[in-house]
């Protein structure tokens, strides 16, 4: 009982994180409380399983991909996420503030997160096969492999500017030009 309170956040840390991510103190404390509750084993860091324990994420068709993108962007090869890294990724989803120079939640940063979801092997390109995997997670056994192929083909063709059969990050950004990324990938934080 009460072992979670021993992993307290120091004031200096809160200030540093606040400067880096533009979250205010109150939000950081609440996110820390959330971090601790996800960290059921009290290890001080989060692993993949800790995320997938959240039922609403586990039933999300892209649940696995989201967790994967999380860990990739955090840059940690060991698949362990500390609180700092956790908050930095969440900061990507802050609404874009015009007139404020923010390094984490720009349009490109949001697109980077989405790209990481699709790029399974992290080689900087989305291939037809990788897109098929994504599609498969979303619809499961409800479509035939032929339909899967067809949709994947069409998708790659649409975005593949240089006709190399795969989509680079730049091609991805260009394909998303007409989409309101800021609206789709922003979360309104309270307080």
């Amino acid at each position, binding site marked *: *009982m*009460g072992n979670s*309170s021993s992993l*307290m956040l120091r004031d200096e840390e809160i200030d540093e994180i606040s400067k880096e991510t533009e979250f*205010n*103190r*109150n*939000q950081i*404390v*609440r*996110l820390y*409380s*959330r971090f601790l*509750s*996800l960290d059921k084993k009290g290890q001080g860091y989060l692993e993949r399983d800790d995320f*997938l*324990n*959240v*039922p*609403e*994420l*586990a*039933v*999300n*068709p*892209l649940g696995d*991909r*989201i967790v994967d*993108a999380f860990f990739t962007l955090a840059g940690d090869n060991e698949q362990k996420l500390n609180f700092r890294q956790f908050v930095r990724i*969440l900061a990507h*989803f802050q609404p874009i503030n015009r007139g404020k120079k923010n390094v984490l939640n720009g349009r490109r940063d949001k697109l980077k*997160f*989405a790209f990481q*979801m699709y790029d399974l092997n992290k080689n900087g390109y989305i291939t037809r096969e990788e897109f098929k995997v*994504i*599609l498969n*997670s*979303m*619809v*499961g*056994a*409800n479509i*035939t492999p*032929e*339909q899967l192929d*067809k*949709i994947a083909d*069409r*998708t790659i063709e*649409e975005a593949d500017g240089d006709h190399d059969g795969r989509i680079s990050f730049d091609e991805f950004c260009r*394909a*998303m030009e007409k*989409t309101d990324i800021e609206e*789709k*990938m*922003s*979360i*309104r*934080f*309270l307080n």
Partner: protein
Amino acid sequence: MLILLPIFFPLVALLLAVVIVLAIFGKSLGIREWYVDVLTRIFEWGSAIEAYEAPAEVDEEEPGTGRRKLRRSSSSDIGIIVREKSTVVESKLDGNEPEENQQKTVRVIVNDSLDFATAGMEAIIEDQVTSRFKAEELSSWNLLTRTRFSFHHISWKLSALWVGGFFLRYFILVPLRVVIFAVGFSMMAGSCFIIGMIPHKKIRKFAYKHAMLMSQRIVARSFSSIIRFHNQENRANQGGICVANHTSPIDVLILSTDNCYAMIGQKQGGILGFMQTALSKAEHHIWFERSEAGDRKKVTDRLRAHTNDPSKLPIIIFPEGTCINNTSVMMFKKGSFEIGSTIYPIAMKYDSRLTDAFWNSSEQSYGEYLWRMMTSWAIICDVWYLPKMTRKDDEDAIAFSRRVKRAIAHKGGLVDLEWDGMLKRERVSSKLVQMYQKRYFDRLQRTTSIGQITENESEALEVMQNLNDEERELLLKELDDSMDEATLIKKVSEYGPIIRKRLQSSAGSSQSQSS
């Protein structure tokens, strides 16, 4: 100090006697209510000190807000974020789409994947399910360290209050409570054994009912509980099944101070097991062995036999199957709703401002929990008896359970969730994941041409199967590698009407031949 002792003991004994006598008759002097009132006022004063000494950080965008406002509501769902995308995703999956149909498949899929991503992030930050398995956050501190997140020192006044509270709880209240509890408990056990020996059935029932009510009231007082019952005209009198939402092991105790119930549960060891044996001596309860617990049919049969017997007491069941933190009601297991007898729903809502009665079984053992309750301020609970419900003819057990659950959630002011309480310990089942995939596929069928791909394809397939040799040769001459699939399918489908005509005429000729 020693001189005070001889005066002290008789006073205490007198106090205990008063409490017990009052409990027996179900009356109250209103002391507990007064005590709760005083405490609430002290807590609010404490919050005011806190807000004064350590004002919350002002958000840069709103320079004028200054001090944080004190929230008065006791069980507010204080959120970190606004969960917009999760709602959007849910409405898309349910079929309430804002967009028109027949959009490009690729566009829809890519846009949806972004929505899924954001909804997933929202779930990571704040979700509806895991929060139900831990105690809710309080808006004003109730001077118990267990509800405090960070211990940084705020003010001397507050710390002094806390020390005073500690002293009061551990050194004055606990001894009194332990004694009262012991009296109540032994009375419960003792009376059961004695009553069990009475041969005459009616007298035995009468004696049991009153002995139980009395002893439960005494035990309830040992937790300094204030229980308010509403709509007592709906109380179950004979037979039937009472269902209630589950928050803590003392739920049964609280309900038993007003009405007598038969209980159902697994046979335990230790003190609980002793209690179960004692209770069974005087009245019919259903205790099943751990090995039988898995055999649902056996349990259901015993349950049905009990409820069909009008001489037996109404049985109390908690269909959630596990303790939830009293901010929501989770999925009801359908077992008790399959039996077909009348259901008497009961809604229970604890007021957590003074003490949170929720038992987090992954964090505390049963003994630790009881000790926590002993060392808390008070337990306040509102109990509503809802009018009885029976299963409608066109309703199955699951729909019925949902209807009852909705009624209970509505009455108690709790959020109605469809999630399974077992998710406290288990992972989401793959069946649930597949269900979501199906729902997404249905959405694609509604909004894109993905369904039409299926239709055209299967038609083409059928045509191919029915071609005879010369038609096949003709078809092959028309097709070539340079065509894309859509054109291929179209070409094949063009043969469709020809084939149909041929099949019809051959069927017609065979008919005329046979007749």
